């Protein structure tokens, strides 16, 4: 049985430099890091010291607030550095990799024959629990909670997003095993949303397959949740990315933690955009070497709407990221750039003040220019056009700015995550930072309501 969901509100932005569907193995990086910033709200408690030898799957740190949630090494090697920032906050646990990986064995098992507790223990022990995210709040799930349902979105509609069906080619069995494990974690259903493109996803067993069509953010799991089973106050739903489902599945198939995934290296400034097989947390230097020939570019771990800016040297791939996007920096002036319709070939706009809407299939080369300055919120209705969730985005943003907890709750803060507001960031003519504001709002709610 499947139902159709159609997302009408939103905006699909096509960018130049989509990754070609070939996979190369990225050169093995000599250096890896797990960065606590990737796990929002986690205060790390270290279990290793500089100089410690670790195998793949050995614990590096755990969450101070919940010791069950462990973060393990993606590689075997030696811990060489604990990078700290202001107030000695841990920024990264850096590991120098050996040439060969040794895997800690967590034991093979068929998830369908295990109990919920056994599955949960295995996932927690291996560090795979960090792949299980929770809505509301968009943080790592608390294993003690009861999840209403688990959602997996098999496709991504963000600009330049990787094709997960392609990325998981050959890992179908691992994906199915991962789904089998997830089904045991909830009393509710596991939903797998698929788009119109035929893929192995729709043949997955033991899940509720949901067909979703429409514009970005149709692929956002938060949007799908809001259409399938909206979150009420006090409820928890969990979400897992498809490539991470396969990593969890691999844990059960082989007994080993293998945080490997296929990454799209894409964007207008990449010489030959394509896919690479990589390991979570690996150093970017070896991956990006000779792939970008220009200066004055921005490298983003993640997609252009929600990712993090990274540097070329000494930075690392984000733990969850399936894409590295490289776009030009926009640090140039544009003469009388406010003139409507001028430069429609290079200026993309959701409003019709650029002819870009007449060319929906044109792939744009967009840069990082803010296209104006931050202003008071004046124009109304533009946020609603890109917000398929049944909330009032502008009123919610204002409630967060006012730190009005009751109003935030009434206006549906539990149903949203920062990524759902990425297009609001994009389209806002007042250049407000909606994702940052929503993140603050969620953090307030975590502290006040929990």
């Amino acid at each position: 049985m499947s139902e159709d969901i159609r997302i009408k509100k939103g905006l699909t932005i096509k960018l130049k430099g989509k990754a070609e569907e070939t996979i190369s193995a990225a050169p093995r990086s000599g250096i890896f890091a797990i960065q606590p910033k990737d796990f929002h709200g986690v205060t790390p408690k270290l279990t290793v010291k500089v100089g410690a030898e670790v195998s793949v799957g050995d614990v590096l740190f755990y969450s101070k607030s919940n010791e069950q949630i462990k973060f393990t090494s993606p590689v075997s090697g030696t811990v060489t550095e604990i990078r700290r920032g202001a107030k000695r906050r841990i920024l990264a646990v850096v590991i120098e990799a050996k040439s060969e990986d040794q895997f800690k064995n967590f034991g093979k098992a068929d998830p369908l024959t295990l109990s919920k507790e056994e599955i949960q223990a295995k996932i927690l022990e291996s560090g795979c629990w960090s792949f299980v995210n929770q809505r509301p709040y968009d943080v790592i799930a608390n294993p003690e909670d009861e999840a209403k349902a688990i959602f997996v979105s098999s496709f991504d509609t963000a600009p330049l997003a990787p094709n997960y069906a392609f990325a998981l080619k050959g890992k179908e069995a691992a994906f199915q095993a991962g789904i089998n494990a997830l089904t045991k974690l909830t009393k509710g259903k596991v939903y797998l949303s698929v788009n119109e493109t035929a893929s192995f996803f729709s043949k997955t067993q033991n899940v509720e397959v949901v067909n979703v069509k429409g514009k970005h953010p149709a692929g956002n799991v938060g949007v799908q949740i809001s259409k399938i089973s909206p979150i009420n106050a006090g409820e928890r739903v969990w979400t897992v990315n498809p490539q991470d489902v396969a990593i969890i599945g691999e844990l059960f198939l082989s007994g080993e933690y293998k945080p490997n995934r296929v990454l799209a290296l894409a964007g207008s400034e990449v010489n030959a955009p394509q896919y690479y097989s990589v390991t979570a947390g690996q150093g970017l230097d070896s991956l990006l070497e000779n792939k970008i020939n220009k200066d004055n570019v921005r490298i983003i771990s993640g997609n252009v709407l929600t990712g993090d800016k990274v540097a070329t040297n000494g930075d690392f791939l984000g733990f969850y990221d399936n894409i590295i996007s490289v776009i030009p920096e926009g640090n140039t002036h544009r003469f009388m750039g406010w003139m409507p319709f001028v430069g429609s070939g290079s200026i993309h706009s959701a409003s019709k003040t650029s002819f870009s809407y007449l060319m929906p299939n044109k792939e744009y080369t967009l840069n990082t220019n803010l296209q104006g300055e931050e202003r008071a919120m004046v124009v109304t209705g533009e946020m609603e056009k890109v917000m398929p969730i049944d909330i009032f985005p502008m009123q919610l943003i204002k409630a967060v700015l006012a730190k009005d907890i009751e109003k935030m709750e009434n206006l549906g803060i539990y149903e949203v995550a920062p990524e759902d507001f990425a297009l609001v960031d994009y389209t806002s003519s007042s250049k407000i930072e909606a994702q940052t504001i929503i993140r603050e709002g969620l953090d307030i709610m975590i502290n006040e309501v929990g």
Partner: protein
Amino acid sequence: MKFIRNTFDKYKPLFDKGGKYEKMAPAFNAFDTLMFVPNHTTKQGAHIRDGVDLKRVMITVILALVPALIFGMWNVGYQHFSQLGEAGTFIDYLIYGSVKFIPMVVVSYGVGLGIEFAFGVFRGHDINEGYLVSGMLIPLIMPIDLPLWMLGISVAFAVLIGKEAFGGTGMNILNPALVARAFAFFSYAPSMSGDKVWVSDAATVDAISGETILGSLAQNKEAGYSVLDMFMGYIPGSVGETSVLMILIGAAFLLFTGIASWRIMAGSVIGGALMGLIFNALGLNALMNFPWWQHLLVGGFAFGVVFMATDPVSAAQTDKGKWIYGFFIGLLAIMIRVFNGAYPEGMMMAILLMNVFAPTIDHYVIQGNIKRRKKRQKTNLETA
């Protein structure tokens, strides 16, 4: 282009932090960013951004005003000369109108932007673009003979009390342009209403009757103009409001670019038409008998619907709210027009009144969403 950029870059350090004129930075930046989209890049959130910004939005509205503006200047000359019985060429009319009208624009922008700049500099915030549109709207809705000092004071009142007192652009409750008009209307009534102000020199030259259509109707007289005149705008009135054709061109541009809300415009026209029909059915006096669709052509109705009611800051903000807000503007405008003989033009009052009610309308629309959410929660708890 390069030269202008270089000039800006040369003097920019003086206005940067620690520079000699640091405090004047908002003023400098206002000019700089008007000439060039700044080289600022995204720091957080989405790395790419839409090409639209507040400047582009405001300029789009100004471009939409241009047809009504040019026609209005021509009409100032045309009304003046034709009532005197003098023939003139297109250019004569336009020149006469420009000489009368351009000083009003200069005063409006001069006073308004002067205050905005002062606030920007004293409060140390960037100068918002909101006044670019208000400054153009204000002279377009004033009588052409309004003394410039009255205009200046009205503008100052609108910007200070109507806008900055509430926190500046984006925070005001009332439409600033209408605040200016309302201020002038109540403070300088002889220059703002009656039958002697709507055609240039009507107050001083006896041969000129400046009576507007609504004014005549209010006195139970004939309208005295053909429907074509009303639609084309060959009638007395304030500069921008007379030509429905030119306003419709502007409206088409605003709707095409998606800058103005079609919901507000559609709601207002429906509301106005409905009220007109009701009055036609009653038919007690000349104003009530005036055909409903002609009500939509005369006075400030069209101009108000397209350029005033759609101001996003003072209008309702929710989609449903915009329908309701627009509907009542149309309804009330015609109602005030017909009931208040002393003040036949109801559009200004209708919009200002609905400006005040807009947050209430939004409140109830949003309550609907909240109730739905709470109900879902409740049924969920019951079934669980």
